[in-house]
């Protein structure tokens, strides 16, 4: 596909947007991993929530 004389600009803007989106996604996933790791570390030391996720839902 020919994008004409300004192909560089077009590709750059799509590329930069893609990069931003990827950074956002990476942030979200790494953050999730970090928080879950922290939760697991705490759970390993016996510090857990009083009413964990998987228990009956109606209680809350």
């Amino acid at each position, binding site marked *: 596909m020919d994008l004409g004389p300004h192909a560089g*600009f*077009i590709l750059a803007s799509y590329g*930069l947007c893609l990069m931003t989106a990827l950074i956002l996604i990476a942030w979200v996933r790494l953050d999730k991993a970090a928080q879950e790791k922290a939760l697991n570390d705490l759970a390993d030391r016996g510090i857990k929530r009083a009413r964990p*996720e998987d228990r009956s839902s109606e209680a*809350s």
Partner: protein
Amino acid sequence: MAFWDYANPTRFLRFVQAVLPWLTGLCLLFFAVGLYMSFFVAPEDYQQGDTVRIMYIHVPAAWLCMMCYSVMTLSSIGTLVWKHPLADVSAKSAAPIGAAFTFMALVTGALWGKPMWGTYWVWDARLTSVLVLFIMYLGLMTLWRTMEDPIKAGKAAAVLTLVGALNLPIIKFSVDWWNTLHQPASVMRFDGPTIHPDILWPLLVMAVAFTLMFFVLHLMAMRNEILRRRVRALRMRAASAAQPAPAGAAQPAE
């Protein structure tokens, strides 16, 4: 807000768990269609040539950066008026996403500006107010970062978000006015091509795709934030928990 009934963070997490895969799939679908259309279906503009293809990401990004601020404004009202436990979680996790969309709008706009106007940046009303919006996003994020206590940070940020919401239109209009006073006529003002259906459709599809992306990311970020607060609460308990020694004596932290 859609998740109004999901007041309880636990129930909210379950809701996210259920909805997220569908939303993600839908989002990818729209992106596939939208990108295909914007590169292969949409015609090139008779005036701008292929550069018009930048529009399919520029305009949705610009729309989304404003919508994101609206979401934050609503959440802030939720924080201040209804003291809803999820409201400041929502506002906090929307800020980086909004900043990212603003960044996209700025970058694509600048890259579009070079071929069209001959310069990456002019101090024109619309561009300037987007830049100010960007600074406001970053300021809010910093405020959240520097305050230790998330509840207090949430309230402070909510006040700032609301004041900023009042300020944005003022900036928009004042910059308009400021600009007409000084702006040399040489800088072209772009008023947008007459929207032709061939162009409109890809644009709308991309806009929906961007919106879906926002919701996916927002839900994921909110989930992280809830987990982070959980970690914080548990850590507090871990610190104050009696030392490994006999735990029987109910003895609070000294």
